[in-house]
């Protein structure tokens, strides 16, 4: 009960932030439809759209919330109420997960209207969405922990966001072969590749264990760095 009212208000605020709603819901839909109509079809670009939703919600918006909440003293306030700052993180994580899932549902709803099907396992897709969400939230937490200045943290997040977004949609073949080993280790790429196999029915999670391990590596690595560097104020 303690964190539930905090969670509810936080979720309402999330939906009132128009710019975040646009970036997390409208923009991925637009990019999937635009790219899909020009080449390769909507089904091919849908996984990139899902990755972009997770990236926007789980990384960019999540990081921005933590950073601005630090500035506002919201996190600090958790030290004077009978709870722990971990409750704040749990609420913020829950809000982000729920917002991510709702955004993806809207994206999938649009795609259903446009007759795009998910050929593979929906449960596996959900599992990857979870993994992706936690991975990008860990990345956001790591940046919030490493970079104390809020302005610098947002600048770094924007610099990271651009390449991560590009590789949501751009086929790897479009890049020089020498870059491929590095590109494959960016967290958005393995996530998109696994989800593409699931959406198009060309593979399963088991067939993509290499990609899953890359994601887990990012998750564990970022979480460890965040745990040691994050300061509540």
């Amino acid at each position, binding site marked *: *009960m*303690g*964190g*539930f*009212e*905090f969670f*509810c*208000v*936080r979720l*309402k*605020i999330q939906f*009132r*932030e128009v710019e975040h709603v646009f970036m997390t819901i409208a923009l991925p839909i637009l990019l999937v439809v635009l790219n899909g109509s020009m080449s390769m079809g909507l089904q091919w670009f849908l996984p990139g759209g899902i990755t972009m939703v997770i990236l926007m919600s789980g990384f960019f918006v999540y990081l921005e919330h933590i950073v601005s909440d630090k500035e*506002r*003293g*919201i996190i*600090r*306030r958790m*030290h*004077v*109420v*009978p*709870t722990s700052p971990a*409750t704040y993180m749990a609420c913020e994580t829950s809000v982000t997960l729920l917002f991510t899932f709702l955004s993806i549902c809207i994206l999938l709803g649009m795609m259903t209207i446009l007759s795009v099907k998910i050929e593979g396992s929906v449960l596996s897709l959900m599992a990857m969405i979870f993994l992706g969400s936690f991975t990008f939230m860990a990345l956001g937490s790591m940046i919030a922990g490493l970079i104390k200045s809020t302005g610098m943290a947002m600048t770094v997040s924007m610099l990271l966001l651009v390449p991560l977004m590009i590789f949501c949609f751009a086929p790897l073949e479009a890049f020089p072969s020498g870059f491929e080993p590095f590109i494959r280790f960016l967290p958005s790429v393995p996530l998109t590749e696994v989800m593409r196999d699931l959406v198009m029915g060309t593979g399963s999670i088991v067939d993509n264990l290499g990609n899953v391990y890359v994601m887990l590596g990012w998750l564990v690595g970022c979480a460890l760095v965040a745990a040691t560097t994050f300061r509540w104020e």
Partner: protein
Amino acid sequence: MSIEDGAIVLESVSKRYGDVVAVDSVSFQVNRNEIFALVGPNGAGKTTTIEMVEGLRKPDGGTITVNGMAPGDRKVRELMGVQLQDSAFYDKARVKECLQMFRGFYADPLPVDEVLKEVGLKEKANTYYGKLSAGLKQRVAIGVALSSNPSLLFLDEISTGLDPQARRAMWDMILNLKKKGKTIFMTTHYMEEAERLADRVSIIDHGKIIALDTPKNLIKEFGGGSRIEYEGPVIDVGEKTEHLDGKTIIYTDKPKEAVPQLMSEAANRQVDLRGLRVEEPNLEDVFLRLTGREMMD
């Protein structure tokens, strides 16, 4: 009052930041159902002190107890309502939502409507926090502190940034809270605020407590008596007198005798006492006498 009446007790508390001693062996207690003001200029150590009591900072020396328990203890946090200096809430949260956010963490919070009424924000319940004026935002901050139905209220520079009218409204609210049995520990750099609100005042400067008593006693002991000021030449009425830049100041403990004597002498000499006024000493004068300098506002 005995130490058992102390809701908050500080004994020889110190806090350093590198070479800077922010709080230097401070001792005092805040008694139950009183308004206790810690007053001093910016940088004196007020916020550091109150935040150590709230459990936000750890002292480097000394002991602090709140209701007999250590600051930061979960049971202590249940009793506390805290208005943090420089804290804010979400711009896109409605006022009532700001009050809702944290009340769920407490065992017995007040209903939101009751808190809205208490802080005079009933009509603004559905207004976004980002659209409020500075004065109303401070009311939200107090409302959030009250939501937990605390017995101990911590107010850190509650009037900063408020216009005089908003400040006075805030004072009325705080006095009302005291009538309801709250114990209030506040910090301020407005001497007038401390004088009007506090049952006891502790003056802190450069991390040290330099005086502690009721405002009335502090003024009586350190205030230096009344001041009669006018623009004109010195007229001797047998009291200590200063003359600077055309202004004459007479210090007296008996203004009711000194003023008629002054006016009589002025009439005899046909001297015009321009801008004649009598000023009673206040805590600003106490601070000036104790430190040799004025409070910077």
